[in-house]
């Protein structure tokens, strides 16, 4: 439960911090592909799933995965 509380605090912090909005014309550096999380979903899926097969954890990484014989 402590983890949930901590992550809730982080989420609230993010929401509050949005009050100091970065304007669209100031986002040039953020639109670069290297600043995009999981810029290539295909790559992401390939990596996530080989790990799913070898480790006992899934989720929490922004990716969705479907059912398969590896779980």
């Amino acid at each position, binding site marked *: 439960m402590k983890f949930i509380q901590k992550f809730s605090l982080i989420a609230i912090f993010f929401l509050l*911090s949005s009050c100091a909005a970065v304007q669209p014309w100031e986002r040039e550096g953020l639109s670069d592909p290297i600043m*995009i999380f999981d810029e290539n979903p*295909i790559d992401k*899926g390939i990596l996530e*799933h080989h790990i799913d097969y070898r480790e006992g954890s899934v989720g929490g990484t922004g990716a969705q995965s479907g059912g398969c*014989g590896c779980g």
Partner: protein
Amino acid sequence: MKKIIFILLAVCTLQAQEIPADELQVNFNGYFDTFSVLIAYPSISLNKQVSENMSITGRYLVDVISAASMRSDFDVDGVTSATSRNSGGGDDNPDEIRHETGLGITRMLGSGTISLNGLYSTEHDYNSSTLAGNITYPFAKKNTIVQLGVVRSWDKVYPQTRDWKRDKNVFTINGGMTQILSKRMLAQVDASYSRMEGMLSDAYQVVSIIFPGDGRAVNYEPIHPAERIRRAVGVRLNYRTGANSAIQTGYRYYWDTWDVNSHTIQGLYQRHFHNKKMTLSLGVRYYSQGRAYFYEEAYTSPQPLMAVDSKLDSGNSQEYQFKLRINGEMLNLLPIFSDEHVDFSFKFNFYRRHTTTVDWHARTRDLYAIITSFGFRYHF
């Protein structure tokens, strides 16, 4: 089923509130490990914008798995009877092939997007149907993007060494938020909840019990709980360190009703070269997990719950990632590839996993794997 199969849906890129661009992507992927698993899995996907606010996606993938993956090498001891075909264990079939097809549609919904994806995967002893829906919506002048997704899959398991057919169902809900923190920094939090039920063990695995009294070895099927609830929360930061470079860091905590819990830490450094015509990515990932409450190194008598799957053992892993992207315009010595609309990529990952006890089949604690990929993305 003793093989790697992966199903990927339209993985949500939380920053994207636009429909996917027209793109053809082809990849030739390979997985090789020291448990004698060898897989080649080419894939092709196509995104096509069909109207101003809607695009469709089609995808096809095939897994070609070596026969070696079904007959891992092991030392001869009392446990090797676990691989006897009559009592379960890996089959003796030659190469196997799995086919996966997917279709998806993404539509603008005001300032956000809504998407629906369907996926079907089939092989000789397993098939899976999956539906996934996803919504993303921006707030606060697009400084905040919220995402919500649902995935439902219906699987059928019918191992060739058994005469039954069983179901496995998975329902997953996930939510996330991406936040612009400054002109140079983004953050993302993500949480997921997944409920699995049905046939949750691998029918080809065998629990071999050597009875202390007379030394008899008897093989049993693994027995896992019929339900598993899995939860994870993660946070990632992406910081622009210069005009051409960025560092991404992330942490995830996972826990489930089988008492498996884990910590994952990862980092990724990316840098452009040659006026952004080339990008180098270097990544590292560390993972550690605890053991499922019913997993034991060896059972001396049959138990209500038994497992030999190394995924349920405690242990840790490390992964190192190298990726190079080169825009076709740089390949002017090879006219056929010289096109600014094409990006070529090469990926090489090295993976090591260490478990507390030896793997039931490979009879070793350490697994080493290499994942390679070569492909291109054509933007038309």
